[in-house]
């Protein structure tokens, strides 16, 4: 019996061992058509895998985009919060110029230039707002001056050129030379601007007079021809002192003002003559497609020049005397109009300059070789520049008329006529072409000496703001 059981188990084991695996499945009851992977089923699986992968890729892309936005937001938030710590921006121009010589020898020596390239302005602004109520702004102009400028006339009549060439002693080449340039401080001010209606500015600021002196930069000016009242220094371009300014909106208009007290027309950087200058400006303007500004400016600038003299008293002690040698008052009044409408731009200023000397304290006439003295004077300058921009081209015309009273020895009227074309390659990159013809007149001038000073200037420049 026991033997029979063992035999039965053994036969069963052998039977199971020889039956193939597929037969086992068959015995389990599954059909071959349902279980076997077909091409279609495999394709479906691949499609599902592709879809899952695409979803995963899209999810990762979305996550990356999300993270990038978050990073950008964090970056921009930090930049916005610290935006006003220090910003550096500016403008520059580079050009080519030719001045055709006048016949008058004295003027020719001053104004004649051959066709020459030049580096005009490279002005950098340093703008910081360390506190919401305070703003610091400095503007510097980097120049190659005084290299190449006229340094006067020698005793033999030769015009002397300034040279700043020095040996480059830090160079391994012993014969190397460099020419040094200079930095002009255009302005350096600290503003307290808690209230738009009442802000205070201290430091070296551009004189808030008229249009041109504040616009002052080649990207903003229509024409680079300097108005006579500025070229003749009827106002100082910049002053060292304090300015109160503000504006009040009366939509769409804005009413603004500026009041200044400064060292004025002093020699050097200190008010050595104790003659403060007082100025003011009042304007009303509107912004928009029609921008309009009407303004009036005033600057009262007394000027005193003292002669300091050391000497020896009768008892042998040292003496120090101060003698006033020049004393005058200067008053500059101006009105200005600025219009921008679509492509049209108009800038115009009318300026009057009056100088009165104290008796016996007149200055020596700068251009009088006979040793005469400056007279009291009342001069008037009026200029207008009109431009119209079509597409990227802005042609313009200008006129600058100056009447001098009393009649100077060489002229009583100066008239500058000119025109040009501004080509806007980009909004901040401009090619400027400028021509100006200066004419001089004098009444009762049988020899026509005034017109001998006439000259022409051609300027082409590339301007960019950054």
């Amino acid at each position, binding site marked *: 019996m026991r033997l029979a059981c063992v035999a039965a188990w053994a036969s069963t084991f052998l039977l199971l061992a020889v039956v193939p695996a597929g037969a086992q499945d068959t015995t389990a009851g599954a059909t071959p058509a349902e279980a076997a992977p077909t091409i279609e089923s495999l394709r479906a699986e691949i499609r599902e895998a592709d879809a899952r992968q695409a979803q995963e890729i899209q999810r990762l892309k979305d996550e990356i985009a999300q993270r990038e936005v978050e990073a950008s*937001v964090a970056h921009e938030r930090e930049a916005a*919060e610290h935006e006003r710590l220090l910003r550096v921006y500016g403008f520059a121009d580079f050009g080519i110029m030719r001045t055709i010589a006048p016949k008058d020898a004295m003027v020719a020596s001053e104004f004649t230039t051959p066709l020459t390239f030049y580096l005009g302005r490279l002005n950098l602004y340093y703008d910081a707002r360390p506190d919401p109520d305070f703003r610091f702004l400095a503007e510097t102009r980097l120049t190659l001056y005084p290299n190449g400028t006229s340094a006067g006339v020698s005793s033999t009549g030769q015009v002397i050129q300034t040279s700043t060439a020095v040996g480059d002693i830090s160079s391994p080449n012993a014969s190397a030379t460099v020419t040094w340039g200079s930095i002009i401080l255009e302005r350096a001010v600290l503003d307290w601007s808690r209230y738009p209606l009442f802000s205070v500015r201290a430091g070296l600021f551009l004189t808030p007079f008229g249009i041109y002196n504040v616009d002052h930069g080649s990207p903003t000016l229509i024409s680079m021809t300097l108005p006579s009242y500025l070229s003749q220094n009827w106002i100082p371009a910049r002053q060292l002192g304090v300015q109160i300014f503000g504006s009040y909106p009366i939509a769409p208009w804005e009413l603004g003002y500026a009041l200044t007290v400064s060292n004025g027309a002093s020699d050097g950087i200190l008010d050595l003559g104790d003659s403060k200058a007082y100025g003011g400006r009042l304007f009303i303007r509107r912004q928009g497609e029609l921008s309009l500004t009407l303004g009036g400016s005033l600057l009262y600038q007394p000027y005193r020049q003292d002669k300091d003299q050391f000497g020896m008293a009768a008892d042998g002690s040292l003496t120090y005397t101060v003698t006033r040698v020049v004393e005058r008052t200067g008053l500059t009044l101006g009105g200005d109009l600025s219009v921008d409408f679509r492509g049209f731009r108009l800038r115009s200023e009318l300026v009057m300059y009056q100088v009165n000397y104290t008796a016996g304290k007149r200055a020596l006439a700068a251009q009088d070789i006979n040793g005469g003295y400056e007279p009291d004077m009342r001069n008037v300058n009026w200029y207008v520049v009109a431009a119209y921009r079509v597409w990227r081209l802005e042609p313009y015309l200008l006129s600058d008329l100056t009447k001098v009273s009393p009649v100077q020895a060489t002229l009583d009227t100066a008239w500058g006529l000119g025109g040009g074309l501004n080509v806007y390659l980009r909004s901040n990159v401009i090619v400027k072409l400028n021509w100006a013809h200066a004419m001089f007149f004098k009444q009762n001038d049988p020899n026509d000496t005034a017109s001998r000073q006439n000259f022409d200037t051609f300027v082409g420049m590339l301007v960019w703001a950054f």
Partner: protein
Amino acid sequence: MNPSQREVPRPVPAATRRRSTRARWVLATSIVLALLAVLGGGLRAEAPPVLAVIVHPGVPATTLGAAELASIFTRATRSWKDGSPIRPLNLPPGTPERAEFDRVVLNMSPDRSAQYWIDRQVRGDEPAPKAIAKADIVARLIPTLTGSIGYVPADKVDAKSRVVARIRDGKVVAP
């Protein structure tokens, strides 16, 4: 060369001359148009976007009109009513949203706007509001930046910001 073989200029038929003249005109016109496209940066004729002007939720303002927006975005108004500083955020020049905002709120074309900010920069006035590269970033940034104000396409506004004005059909309207 035999003189008899010399080519004699044949009279050009009138039709050929007309075709030649037309071809020159087509060529010249094509060159001019190509120059215009290159210099002009292409012409676009897109519908102006609908914009929402949004502020940080802590800003003490619920609605702002066109004049107030203009004053803020020209930096004439620099602080909110509670004295906190205003942080205006712009979109970059050249975007449709910036062009629409400048046109409707500041009443300036893109060229005029560019010149306006360059002039202010040269004169030493307050510079232009900070330009953020994308409207998405503006929409996300404003809820996190105290005192901020900006504008985005209306469909990008979320609940974290407060809408104080909308710019639609060339007008500033209440939110």
